[in-house]
């Protein structure tokens, strides 16, 4: 009985924390972007502008929830929910600290890869159901980008999996007690970072949205809370990728003095900040460049990483 209660608290706790982080990131991102562009960013609503997300949510809920008459209505309505649901489901296997995990799945890494693949459906269906050619181009780009980057995203983690001998995220973290995997698996880390940016289609790899060419791409027909859900999904995606980098390469909750959860979130927010810095600093590559980097540079690199890691492990045995 008490086990069930603890589980329920864990489930809703993680859900609540994740949703608050996603909402708070609206403010964090706008503020940081502003500071990096020699502006201040939103600083009017509440102390330091921290209530800005609240104002945004009120605005977005009060907006007209409009579905274009040429759109495929059920799919159009369903698409934004998919991205949020798939990303939220991955947080279930995330080990925040020893004992703080919703489901200690022994195939956590595979589960994450599966769920992030399902996330493509959101973008692809959203763009398709909009009945708009720009949205469709955006959706096609998103699908191509996410499929090609998923390949070596999975491969880049394999080095970590080989070294720790487990697909279980908790076991992977525990295997990093002595040395964080960012040191022996630096190539894997770099590849995963790039793939993560592409996977969440964030700048500089935001080709599916590309405001300047595709007028917001797959979500150009979306408005109101449906548009808001895409945004929440994007911020949840950033949080997810940052948390995975922390878990897989930076020793998860390990760190001196401070409690484990604090260390986990410090590392996570470092990478969230890095994602925003990428957005502030880098221009968008051309589409063919993006795909070329993926197949011609990142895929061979991650394969090489696996071969070298495997070779060294065999030699060391």
């Amino acid at each position: 009985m008490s086990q069930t209660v603890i589980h329920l608290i864990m489930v809703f706790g993680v859900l609540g924390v994740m949703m608050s982080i996603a909402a708070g990131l609206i403010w964090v991102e706008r503020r940081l972007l502003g500071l990096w562009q020699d502006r201040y960013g939103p600083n009017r609503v509440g102390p330091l502008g921290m209530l800005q997300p609240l104002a945004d949510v009120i605005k977005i809920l009060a907006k007209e929830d409009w579905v274009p008459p040429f759109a495929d209505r059920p799919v159009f309505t369903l698409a934004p929910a998919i991205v949020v649901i798939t990303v939220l489901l991955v947080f279930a296997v995330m080990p925040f600290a020893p004992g703080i995990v919703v489901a200690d799945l022994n195939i956590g890494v595979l589960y994450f890869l599966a769920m992030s693949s399902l996330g493509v459906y959101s973008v692809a269906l959203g763009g398709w159901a909009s009945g708009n050619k720009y949205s469709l181009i955006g959706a096609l780009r998103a699908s191509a980008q996410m499929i090609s980057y998923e390949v070596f995203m999975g491969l880049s983690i394999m080095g970590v999996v080989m070294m720790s001998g487990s697909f279980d995220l908790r076991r992977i973290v525990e295997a990093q007690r002595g040395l964080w995997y960012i040191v022996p698996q630096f190539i894997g880390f770099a590849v995963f970072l790039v793939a993560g940016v592409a996977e969440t289609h964030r700048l500089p790899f935001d080709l599916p949205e590309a405001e300047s060419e595709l007028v917001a791409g797959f979500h150009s027909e979306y408005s109101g809370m449906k548009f808001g859900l895409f945004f929440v999904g994007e911020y949840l995606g950033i949080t997810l990728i940052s948390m995975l980098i922390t878990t897989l390469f930076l020793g998860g909750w390990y760190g001196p003095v401070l409690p484990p959860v604090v260390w986990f979130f410090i590392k996570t927010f470092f990478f969230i900040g890095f994602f925003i810095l990428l957005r502030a600093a880098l221009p968008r590559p051309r589409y063919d460049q993006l795909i070329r980097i993926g197949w011609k540079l990142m895929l061979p690199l991650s394969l090489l990483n696996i071969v070298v890691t495997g070779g060294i492990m065999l030699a060391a045995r």
Partner: protein
Amino acid sequence: MKGKKLLGMFSILKTLWVVFLHLFKRKVTVLYPEEKPYIPPRWRGRIILSRDPDGAERCVACYLCAAACPVDCISLQATEDEYGRRYPEFFRINFSRCIFCGYCEEACPTYAIQLTTDFEMSEYNRQNLVYEKEDLLISGTGKYHGYNFYKVAGLSIKGKEKGEGENELPPVDVKGLMP
């Protein structure tokens, strides 16, 4: 070629670092309501109607401002007082239309209508942007001190005949023979 591409990677890292350093740079934003920007004296802001040094309205209701206005935001009605002096019965400026071009000020023959440095005119109700004469009239002379149209106009009104004002010569007797 390959080396150049690898070096290009470092330029990306350098970009990230340079942008990160901007966190500590001075911000260019002027935090407006707390920090007022400099407004030049010739700023074309809220329109006012000024008065003579004697305190009487300068406006003679000649309609030149209304005619000059490119967006037709000025509306007025002329009338005369018992001294034969023209003044507007009502004078209305619709500031939701006004483009602050200053043509009315240029057209005004009596320096009555003037643009000021005030620009903080936000209203919650659009109708409140329609300013009546009592909203427009100020108690002072505005930018032109000491100017009194009827003292220099060579126009006769009750209490002042032609040529009796300052800087006015008596009217030429067109029927006289003197040069």
